[in-house]
């Protein structure tokens, strides 16, 4: 008998945005944990999938000591704010999805949007936050 498997999403390749989509995985142990112990986070994996399907910005270099990794940014239409309660995703926020160098999702949530680019999280230009903007949607 096999356990649950990592869920495969297909998203823009930060290194070749015009090329074929790459696979980014949602680890089975992560979604199983959220399902069991953090149900609202589990529900908001829907927003993770939406952002990976429809990213607006991709940043690279998200950690000081763990090299690599990306931050995919987007805006889901709605999200869960508490058990059983779904509301429109706020205009003044973005949804960020953090992906490690093995292309596995490890963290996500809303962040305040930047005033100079509402598709970016606040402080996106700060060099101690991201190494840089890797890609931006033109649509």
């Amino acid at each position, binding site marked *: 008998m096999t356990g*649950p*498997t990592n*869920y495969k999403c297909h998203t823009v390749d930060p290194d070749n945005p015009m090329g074929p989509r790459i696979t980014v995985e*949602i*680890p*089975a142990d*992560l*979604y*199983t*944990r959220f*399902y*069991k*112990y*953090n*149900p*609202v*986070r*589990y*529900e*908001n*994996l*829907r927003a993770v*999938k939406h952002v990976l399907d429809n990213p607006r910005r991709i940043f690279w270099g998200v*950690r*000081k*000591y*763990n090299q690599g990794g990306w931050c995919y940014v987007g805006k889901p239409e*709605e*999200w*869960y*704010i*508490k*058990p059983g309660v*779904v509301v429109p995703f706020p205009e003044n*926020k973005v949804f*960020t999805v*953090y992906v*490690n160098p*093995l292309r*596995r*999702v*490890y*963290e996500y*949530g*809303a*962040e*305040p949007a930047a005033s100079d680019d509402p598709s970016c*999280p606040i*402080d996106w230009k700060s060099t*101690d*936050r991201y190494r840089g903007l890797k890609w931006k949607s033109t649509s």
Partner: protein
Amino acid sequence: MEKHFLNEYVTGEPEFRPEPWYNPHGDCIIYQTADEAVVRERVDEFLTVYHSALDNRVIGYQIKDVTAIIKKFGLVGLAVQSEQNGTRITSISASALLLAAYEDGLPSLRRREAYAEAISGPACTIPVSQIC
């Protein structure tokens, strides 16, 4: 809302647990005290504070680059010993980890407030065996 795309892979009755845990995919400790949507506030390279999307109160935090902090400061000062069913367990204190992370950055009012807020929560430990 349509059916969750992962529902066929999960079973059992969900029950929220407000306890810290080590996430190996992100080399981070995640601690969330309420089952509510999170608005992340990045404080610095080590700490992100979680605010409730409902009322903006602090409902947890993420400590990043955990193994780097342990490598830099060593287990001495970060670890606590306990005994469970006759077995000795070494755990990492989340508060000690936060203090070490705070020491590593430049002082600022915002950092001090955010770290104080994170440390003021319940004392939490994570077994070293989960991390190293």
